[in-house]
């Protein structure tokens, strides 16, 4: 009956998502985005009050008021969108994937009703070396340092026939000794801190570390726990951050690729 299963599988539809529709697309991410032309001081204060984490903040500096959105702390609960009356919407594009910790944070000038534009951070030396060394063939060792398993569920989805990350020459490997990149999820628990450090030490240089999910980027809702050390960068150095709770497969792929910056994903 093996032949029957194979025959049945061969008849299944082609579902591979084309590259043009893959990157940056934020469907299902639940991440918010701001419509700057609708932004007012009252709305900004309302959405900040609605945020149960500290992802949204008001920053007052030299007479200007800014609305700050840190994707690294956002769990996508949607309360700001409910409170924002159209000023905040579910993002159609998420470009802040695989970026520096600083670039996870966006800022809008409320009086000027415009986003404060940041420079795209320079590529890290390790990323340039790996790009020169291996081209697009990237071996990833995934480490769960204390995650709820939500991020793992989405990382596993990268291998399904819709996303098929092997088409880009990206593979998941079993040993850190075979890896170019550690893809680390979770708030790092006390009980996983030593194992994460050991795995990191086993990865040959040059290497990259990517922190995944709200917990991996900022500690998320678990950051204040007695059993948690903190975000991934509290234990090992991190080159790129992928926000989301959990990040969708599209966000993960965008982030993994963006760390190497083979082409510019503009924001």
């Amino acid at each position, binding site marked *: 009956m093996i032949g029957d299963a194979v025959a049945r599988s061969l008849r299944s539809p082609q579902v591979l998502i084309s590259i043009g529709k893959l990157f940056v697309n934020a469907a299902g991410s639940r991440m918010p985005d701001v419509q700057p032309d609708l932004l007012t001081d009252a709305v900004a204060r309302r959405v900040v009050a609605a945020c149960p984490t500290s992802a949204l903040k008001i920053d007052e500096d030299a007479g200007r008021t800014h609305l700050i959105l840190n994707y690294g702390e956002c769990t996508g*609960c949607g309360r700001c969108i409910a409170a924002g009356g159209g000023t905040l919407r579910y993002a159609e594009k998420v470009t802040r994937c695989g970026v520096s910790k600083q670039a996870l944070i966006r800022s809008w000038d409320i009086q000027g009703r415009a986003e404060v534009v940041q420079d795209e951070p320079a590529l890290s030396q390790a990323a340039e070396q790996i790009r020169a060394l291996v081209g697009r063939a990237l071996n990833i060792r995934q480490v*769960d340092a204390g995650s709820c398993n*939500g991020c793992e569920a989405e990382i596993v989805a990268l*291998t399904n026939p819709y996303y098929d990350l092997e088409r880009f020459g990206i593979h*998941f490997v079993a040993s850190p000794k075979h890896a170019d990149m550690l893809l680390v999820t979770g708030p790092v628990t006390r*009980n996983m801190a030593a194992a994460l450090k050991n795995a990191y030490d086993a990865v040959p240089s040059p290497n990259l570390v990517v922190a995944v999910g709200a917990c991996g980027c900022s500690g998320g809702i678990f950051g204040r726990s007695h059993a948690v050390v903190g975000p991934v960068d509290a234990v090992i150095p991190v080159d790129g951050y992928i926000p989301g709770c959990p990040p969708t497969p599209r966000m993960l792929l965008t982030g993994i690729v963006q760390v190497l910056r083979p082409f510019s994903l503009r924001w």
Partner: protein
Amino acid sequence: MTVTLPNSEADRSRALDLLGAANTRLVSIFGSTDDNHVRYVHYLIDVNGREYRMLSSPVTGSIPSATPIVPAAAWYERELHDQYGIECEGHPDPRPLLFHENWPENVHPMIDDASHVPWAEGQYHFLRVHGDGVCEVPVGPIHAGIIEPGHFRFSVVGDTVLHLELRHFYTHKGTEKLFENTPVMDAVMIAESVSGDNCFSHAVAYCQAIENAFAISVPPRAQAIRLIGLELERMLAHIADVGALCGDVGFTVPAAYTARLKETLLQASTRFFGTRFWRGIAVPGGVTRDLSSAETGEFGRMVTAAAREFAQMARLILHTSSVQNRFESTGILTAEIAKQLAVVGPAARASGIGLDVRRDHPTGRYRDINVDVPQYTHGDVLARARIRIDETAISTHLINETLKELPAGSVLVPVPLSGSADALSAVESPRGELLYWVRIRDGKITRCHIKSPSFQNWPALPLAMLGNIIADFPLINKSFNLSYSGCDR
């Protein structure tokens, strides 16, 4: 569902008597403190398979262990000691459970200040198996695949496993403590992050506990949408598990096939509910998303189509001789051991123990419908695969029936933001019986205990493994598919 809350010393011995009876099942043991910092132990027991009964008593000094009466109590009592410093006299294995050697012995986070705990350097002692040719195989905490962390210590002679010791709680995040002082409307986010692939079950169990505490009637339409989410989550889990079982015997074609079907359902969720795993949908008082009548038809067709494809592939899988050879009589969990360890969920039903919260302790929409509970007796990998295949079909049926008669009306009612009460709630998650017990004071959670099916079932895995070859471990482990984070919390 009946909950009694008498508070006397006598209730503890009554609980131990009750646990020794044939018609009872241990559901959970956990601790709490009252407003005067007095510690309590709570025994949650299922009587006659139809009624949850809770017996609670204050604790001064040590208490007699329930583990000699019912082995299922072992991990609960170790957790009780780690969290509350309550000694259980006569416990056969009083080693720390939640905390590893980095944690000082005398810090109990539910009663002590745990904000700045120093790092300790203790040692953990595995049970040693002695004899000619016995070797130990350590596996984990980091595993070869994209899986959660945990440690398995095998003692083997040749390929045959003589003993398997689990060492878990690598993902312990102090979650129950994090609930403390969180407003009732916010804490649902913590519940959603206990076990990421069962997040909707956790969210609904938490929300129902709040609604029970404040005697809130959730609108029928919200109850129906919750049922759809719970059954869809079960389908996703079961379809993925059957595919992964095929992957573990090297049959990769059905593994890729089922991964596609699972993704189809996740994308249907995205399209109609804006979320892949149903996060942010359940809130105390109802749900945040509704379906239009046009959407119900299309959503139902997508679910039905995926389920039909899965059923056809499942039939081919079960008729494949190499699959039969690997699944049959592998990793047998006997009914007797399953009963002693109070195993729940698909693993129980595959070992002849027909437990299902949806039928036995129904809540919400489940009160109005009949749920078929499939049951097998062999307790092997094949039986656990069959349970998942059968239940996927049943969940599809339940979703379609619910979509057909979706009640009219709103999907959300307000919840009081202040108030004080204690309450319990149960849900049949894809992995089995999931319970939340909450204590609310002035609109904030002061204690939340989570009885997770994985915490209950993990101790059964080593016993199903005995006498099997170590190469079958991934398959046997996957056939239980327990959550690490859900267990470790």
